[in-house]
């Protein structure tokens, strides 16, 4: 038992050394915590500053009505078929790499607004980041998503095969 305790103590000392080395090396090199952009991010929902911006329902409605935006639904195809924001296209996050045809067909002159179920899901954020990385600028995230759109009884449609 004492042998284990001894090992734990040694491991704690190792960890403490790592803390000292980590902070001193970053301080000397002015990196990380001591770097010029020390704050990597705001932090609601763990979003980085260079992440696409989040919009609230009023702005989403405005962009929907003005026709400036194309809504991109990050949910599974099954959920999309049951109901989605009118005019939205479906691009599930986990199919991003395989749906290159759809990706190429997305307009570059319109604002893309990603959404998923609502505050319980993060795929809208992931999809927006992937779209940004694929070269689309001005991507927005409608984080309140489908649940809020549906609750307000805004224009919807279902897929009729």
């Amino acid at each position, binding site marked *: 038992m004492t042998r284990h305790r001894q090992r734990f103590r*040694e491991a704690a000392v190792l960890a403490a050394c790592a803390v000292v080395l980590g902070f001193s090396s970053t301080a000397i090199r002015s990196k990380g915590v001591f770097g010029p952009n020390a704050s990597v991010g705001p*932090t609601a929902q763990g979003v980085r500053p260079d992440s696409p911006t989040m919009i609230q329902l009023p702005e989403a409605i405005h962009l929907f009505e003005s026709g400036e935006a194309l809504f991109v639904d990050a949910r599974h195809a099954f959920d999309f078929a049951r109901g989605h924001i009118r005019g939205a296209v479906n691009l599930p996050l986990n199919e991003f790499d395989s749906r290159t045809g759809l990706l190429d067909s997305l307009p570059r002159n319109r604002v893309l607004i990603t959404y998923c179920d609502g505050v319980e899901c993060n*795929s809208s954020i992931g999809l927006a980041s992937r779209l940004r990385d694929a070269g689309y600028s001005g991507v927005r995230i409608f984080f309140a998503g489908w649940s809020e759109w549906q609750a307000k009884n805004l224009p919807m449609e279902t897929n009729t095969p």
Partner: protein
Amino acid sequence: MKAFFSNEYNVLTARIFLGTLLVVASADKIADPAAFARSIEDYQLISGTAAMVAATIIPWMEMLCGLALIAGVVVQASALLTGALLLAFTIAVISALVRGLDISCGCFTQDPAVSRIGWLKIGENVILIAVTAFLYSAQNTRFSLEHYIGSRQSGS
């Protein structure tokens, strides 16, 4: 079975393998802690200053454990700490996969285009955790700095 655990060459191989892996893994992260902090944030478990602090400390833990394993000093404590880190990484990867996050691992490189997380990563980590458990329970200290120092002291 006992012979396997006390075989000096098995212990040496495991030490060099895990030690090298850790040193290689830590290099990129030590060089650019901010990039590693962004990789951590992608997991959406911690963010901001907490991610940056983790990105400052974790790579050095890997580096120290790696060097200690290769040199053969405080091998069991290093194996213990490495095991704890790997366990934490594995839980993070599982939680990200469960939440459907398609993110890069941030394990060996901070290039987002390389090595996205998947269930294979969990398998890799389980194997590595098994190696740390083996090193923690192994008693053999031959080919280690500790053994060398110990034998010199007892010889004099």
